């Protein structure tokens, strides 16, 4: 049944249906309402979750690690500075192969302090070892929270999964969402069978031991195998969900009118929706333009990206954060993906939307028009920036 709800509520609904054993969470704008909704569910006895009200995000992630090692199904949520505080423990959670699913209400990192959306927080955690998925709408945030649970808990993966949703733009805006009935959502997610649970006292195990130069390298290689196992697991979980919910989800990427495109945008998050409007409008004018939306950001789908873009003449990669001193992080990954292809597009890198700066279809229209010509060696370009 179609309902109206905010992105917060959509994520909280998915969490309610997953009903993890433990949620450890600390409030931060624009994530707080996710925690608030969930605390209400706990208070009202709707879920049997142990809600751990911690004193910081560092503690939130630490509690998640402890509970997950104990054998619990665990979730959390955060944003911006909260993720920055979590990152130390997020690396450990990934190395310990703990399937912690978390919503990240994307918000600009300080400073200057700001509460609005960009992707600097997600980029901060990009090498932490967590799987990262970007969503375009409250509906996708709901759907991919359920899908993330399946990916995180797959026996070959067992990694934290971050579901990104743009702060305010998706978290605070009321949109139409069609959730699954509880039983179908629960059936989809299934039961969790932990590895070496600490609470299984008949089978003791040691977690998080010291690893010296003789074993550290091998253990990190094992972790790499975990994230390399994600792509087929992602596709299978997505396919099952698409069939169950009747959604048109297929693949790590969502190409939009890209087959015969001469120029294309690459973008993540809610701006992809606005970009579709732009593409439609320009197509109506006879312009051969298209869009590639990146859903799975970590592990980065190099081959799929190259396959999707190799035939395009010019590609503008849109990064919603600066990676100071180099190109945008998404641009660098796309460039790497295309490096060994014989035929490859001319690439340009645009920085947009920092700290909640609005990006309109008109601005994207301008990008798609000006990239027709223009020197790719110009370095970073900016959308909607005052000179």
């Amino acid at each position: 049944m179609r309902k109206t709800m905010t992105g917060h509520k959509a994520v909280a609904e998915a969490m309610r249906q997953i009903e993890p054993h433990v949620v450890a969470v600390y409030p931060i704008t624009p994530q707080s309402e996710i925690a608030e909704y969930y605390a209400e569910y706990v208070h009202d006895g709707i879920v049997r979750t142990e809600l751990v009200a911690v004193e910081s995000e560092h503690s939130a992630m630490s509690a998640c690690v402890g509970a997950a090692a104990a054998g619990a199904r665990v979730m959390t949520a955060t944003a911006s500075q909260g993720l920055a505080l979590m990152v130390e423990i997020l690396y450990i959670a990934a190395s310990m192969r703990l399937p912690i699913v978390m919503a990240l209400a994307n918000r600009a990192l300080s400073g200057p302090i700001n509460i609005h959306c960009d992707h600097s927080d997600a980029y901060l955690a990009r090498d932490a070892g967590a799987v990262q998925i970007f969503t375009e709408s409250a509906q996708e945030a709901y759907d991919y929270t359920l899908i993330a649970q399946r990916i995180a808990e797959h026996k070959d993966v067992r990694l934290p999964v971050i579901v990104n949703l743009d702060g305010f733009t998706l978290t605070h805006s009321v949109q139409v969402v069609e959730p699954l009935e509880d039983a179908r959502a629960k059936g989809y997610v299934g039961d969790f069978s932990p590895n070496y649970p600490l609470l299984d006292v008949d089978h003791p195990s040691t977690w998080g031991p010291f690893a010296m130069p003789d074993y550290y390298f091998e253990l990190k290689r094992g972790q790499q195998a975990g994230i390399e196992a994600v792509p087929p697991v992602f596709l299978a979980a997505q396919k099952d969900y698409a069939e169950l919910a009747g959604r048109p989800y297929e693949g790590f990427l969502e190409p939009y009118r890209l087959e015969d495109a001469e120029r294309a945008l690459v973008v993540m998050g809610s701006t992809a929706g606005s970009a579709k409007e732009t593409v439609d409008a320009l197509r109506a004018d006879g312009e051969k333009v298209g869009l590639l939306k990146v859903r799975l950001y970590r592990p980065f789908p190099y081959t799929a990206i190259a396959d999707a873009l190799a035939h395009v003449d010019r590609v503008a990669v849109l990064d919603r954060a600066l990676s100071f001193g180099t190109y945008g992080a998404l641009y660098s990954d796309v460039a790497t993906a295309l490096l060994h292809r014989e035929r490859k597009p001319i690439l340009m890198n645009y920085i947009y939307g920092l700290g909640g700066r609005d990006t309109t279809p008109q601005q994207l229209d301008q990008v798609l028009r000006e990239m027709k010509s223009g020197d790719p060696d110009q370095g970073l370009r900016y959308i909607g920036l005052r000179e």
Partner: protein
Amino acid sequence: MAAKLKGWKDLPMGGVVPGGATPELNKTGSWRAERPIWNEEKCIQCLQCWLHCPDDSIMIKEQKMTGMDYDHCKGCGVCAGICPVDAIDMVPEGSAACARR
């Protein structure tokens, strides 16, 4: 002595040690430069050594000290220092073997 090191595919997921109990397997007694020698006749069974030993190397049976766990004792000498009746002597490792004989 050096065990063959495992390759990455042979390690349990997440660096977990199934079965646990790693301190027991790690024979830290090989680090010892001085060996505590317990004099049972002098000992008054106050268990101060057991209380203070940082390596859990004072062996106890039915609330009585029964000796030293030389597999794990690192020879720090805390037991000898805390003993109120000087019932524990620290002896250099090299000569300890002779002293025992």
